[in-house]
């Protein structure tokens, strides 16, 4: 646990990628393979086990410290991180150096995974015993493991770089080996590093290639930056969930972009993948469609959050897989081949273009479709198509260079997102709450409102978009204009007007205002405006598409 704790704090203490890679390499080189496998699972950000609820932890910590519950809550509101709060308020361990240092794998097994299913009295006994053994800096890490909330600021790319370095193999090869479920044990970790190991796992997906947002979105700039339009393939940017469908041997597996196996959540897609020839890997988008119409993203997201799709859900939120790319064909890795070639082969494997299905114009009734190409003779034509995006329920266009390989991660230059410009409205900050991590203790999470019948009603929660200096300034104003406090939330006198951007608006019964905005964020602080100048709920409702 000490070695992993040191790794955590070393990663936390630096912003240099070189230093992060060095920290990872040092840890993996020294750690026993069982611990390393465990650590890799944690660092990959896979779904973690929540062995104990945070409510129980707070309660037991209050008991262990003798402090009233409200004081522990007050501390939490100030610190902004429960794991850290509890680590700091608990009494110092009696003799931490005397306690044996257990390896990460053993700690996970005995004090975290082992707690699942046991009764509260036993959990409490284990937790309070661990508290007596660990120093505050170890406790923070352990609390995060215990509550399933450990996040480390390292990307998969950095982990792959460190492990590739350690194994003495190519980084792309390591990235591929790392795909799918992390190694479960010491032997699995050893295989990961072994020279000449092949990607024999029949379920393993490829690392996703991610597009970057264009720096300049005006059509003349796009033309200038990307050159001849005939070198590019344009597709709609579907508002669904990116996924990979892997068909090899007897297996069909469906992987989310977060590399979670989602077979059980989307059984109809897995079934649709079975007829594909073995040795096929498709990259595409999961979309929810009913009666020839796209369903809102929220419904897809809700469905995906369930581990197992019920019959009811299958009927209410039926899904399709719209294929973008072919990564493997006949067992051969195609990723280095140009997009144009991959696309041609893809067309021979999956059904008709998805748009034909949407318009009912095709006899295709399956669940696998081709992402249609948006044809245009010029950037101006494409720009005109892009302007139709919102009406079509898509987020804009994807631009992919026809000669491009399928790269790893977010390497810039060949794949671009040309998203439609966001919708915007000026809204007033009504509530504020302290942030977490770097923004702990600063009021950086805002609830904003619009005018409706002479009063301000809340319409969105938004976080980002202000500079650090602006956040500090807003924090001061929030404190000075607080009318009421409800735990960590402050109700403020309306004084701050923010320009709010969002991707879409839809009617909602779950929101008091009757509307839900998608992906709201603050783009700038309108210091030039008074709350009276902010927008109205009616303005917002006018932005709802006619059929939405």
């Amino acid at each position, binding site marked *: 646990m000490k070695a992993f704790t040191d790794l955590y704090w070393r990663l*936390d*203490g*630096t912003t240099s990628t070189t230093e992060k890679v060095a920290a990872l390499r040092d840890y993996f080189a020294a750690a026993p393979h069982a611990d390393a496998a465990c650590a890799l699972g944690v660092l990959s950000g896979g779904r973690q086990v929540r062995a104990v609820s945070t409510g129980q932890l707070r309660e037991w910590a209050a008991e262990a*410290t003798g*402090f*009233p519950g*409200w*004081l522990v809550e*007050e*501390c939490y509101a*100030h*610190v*902004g*991180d429960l794991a*850290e*709060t509890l680590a*700091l*308020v608990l009494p110092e361990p009696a003799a931490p150096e005397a306690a044996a240092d257990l390896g990460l794998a053993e700690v996970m097994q005995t004090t975290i995974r082992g707690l699942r299913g046991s009764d509260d009295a036993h959990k409490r006994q284990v937790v309070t015993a661990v508290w007596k053994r660990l120093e505050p800096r170890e406790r*923070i890490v352990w609390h995060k493991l215990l509550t399933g909330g450990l996040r480390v600021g390292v990307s998969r790319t950095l982990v792959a770089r460190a492990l590739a370095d350690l194994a003495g193999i190519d980084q792309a090869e390591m990235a591929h080996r790392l795909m799918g479920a992390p190694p479960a044990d010491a032997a699995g970790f050893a295989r990961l590093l072994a020279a000449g190991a092949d990607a024999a796992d029949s379920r393993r997906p490829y690392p996703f290639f991610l597009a970057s947002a264009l720096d300049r979105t005006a059509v003349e700039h796009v033309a200038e930056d990307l050159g001849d339009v005939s070198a590019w393939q344009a597709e709609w940017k579907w508002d669904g969930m990116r996924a990979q469908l892997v068909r090899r041997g007897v297996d069909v597996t469906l992987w989310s972009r977060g590399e979670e196996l989602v077979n059980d959540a989307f059984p109809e897609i897995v079934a649709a993948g079975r007829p594909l020839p073995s040795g096929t890997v498709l990259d595409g988008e999961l979309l929810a469609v009913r009666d020839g119409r796209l369903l809102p993203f929220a419904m897809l997201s809700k469905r995906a959050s369930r581990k197992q799709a019920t019959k009811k859900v299958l009927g209410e939120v039926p899904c399709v897989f719209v294929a973008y790319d072919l990564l493997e064909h006949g067992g051969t890795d195609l990723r280095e081949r140009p997009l144009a070639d991959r696309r041609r082969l893809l067309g021979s494997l999956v059904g008709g273009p998805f748009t034909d299905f949407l318009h009912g114009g095709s006899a295709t009734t399956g669940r696998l479709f081709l992402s249609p190409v948006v044809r245009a003779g010029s950037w101006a034509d494409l720009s005109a198509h892009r302007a139709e995006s919102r009406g079509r329920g898509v987020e804009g266009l994807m631009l992919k260079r026809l000669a491009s390989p399928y790269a790893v991660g977010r390497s810039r230059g060949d794949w671009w997102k040309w998203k439609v410009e966001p919708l915007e409205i000026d809204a007033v900050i009504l509530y504020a709450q302290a942030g*977490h*991590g*770097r*923004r*702990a*203790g*600063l009021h950086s999470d805002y609830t904003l409102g619009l005018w409706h019948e002479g009063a301000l009603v809340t319409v969105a929660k938004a976080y980002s978009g202000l500079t*650090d200096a602006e956040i*500090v300034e807003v*924090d*001061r104003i929030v*404190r*000075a204009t*607080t009318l009421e406090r409800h735990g960590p939330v402050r109700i403020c006198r309306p004084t701050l007007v923010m320009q709010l951007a969002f991707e879409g608006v839809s009617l909602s019964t779950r929101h008091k205002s009757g509307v839900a905005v998608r992906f709201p964020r603050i783009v700038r602080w309108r210091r030039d405006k008074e709350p009276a100048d902010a927008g109205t709920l009616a303005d917002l409702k006018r932005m709802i598409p006619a059929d939405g």
Partner: protein
Amino acid sequence: MQAIPSAGDLLRVTESGLYCERGDFYVDPWRRVPRAIITHAHADHARAGCDRYLCAAEGKLVLRARIGGAAPIDTLRRGERVSLNGVAVSLHPAGHLLGSAQVRIEHGGTTWVVTGDYKLHHDPTCAAFEPVRCDVFVTESTFGLPVYRWQSPAAIAAEINAWWRANRDAGRTSVILAYALGKAQRLAALVDPSIGPIVAHGAVMKIVEAYRASGVRLPPIDRVPPRARRVGNGRALVIAPPSVLGSSWLKLFGESSVAMASGWMTLRGVRRRRGFERGFAVSDHADFPGLLTAIEATGARRVLATHGFSDALSRYLRETRGLDASVLATRFAGEAAPDAAAAEDDGVGDDERAGDEREADA
């Protein structure tokens, strides 16, 4: 719960600060007043421009260095009593920095003690905090939450020494940021001078000289010479006020590791937000257990908490100790923090108090 002022209170908060009407004097006023008793020389407690000052004898040189001018500064030796219009006043060490004092005020059988800022941990550069029995205890509560619990000075020293030694061995200069008044001198006295040379920013040196002239023993400290190149050859510990952060002054030292010394460094979020590579949680304020110990030692039945987490501390005292505890509202509450910026400028303010003002609640 009683608030100030209530009938018969010896002290009350006015627009100019904490005022004793009977004795006609202020304690740490924030405006110009005829007579000011100063608990210590940090900018948020000692304002220039008063007609007459009273402070602890050890703090006179430091106070003069801060406020300048020629206004008379009267002093009291530890525990020495003076009568101001029939009110008995004496000063008792607060352990915050050189010459920091608690003010004991007695009249008509009632005793008040105003702490200013204080700490209980050992500090070789100033006299140790002295518990004083009283009826009403006006205590600071900058770090009045149980997440604030300092390590022992020896443990902190070991941590700083290890960081300095590792930097020295790697040929990197160690830069530690601390307020020029108090913290900087305490750090100089705390670290192991055998590791390498100690050098300091001019703002720190000005106070170092006042400390030495007041009889405080400090290890050899060199002033950073202007435009010196590669000062200390990567071996030195540089003590500088936080205001140098982001300035070209830091470039004097070539490759360096920059750490901040402040009680707020306890929290990872604060350290990350302010972008320090390293933070040492070393404070000249009392931590939560220290506040409780100090309060208990006074025997006071009534406690008024000011600065920082005064709400939480007073509620805790009411509920668990049965004390008549409440918040003493000061001008800092709920306001923006103009002084925080000013304090950073000349490096002699109390940066921890800048944090306090950020945390202050109406």
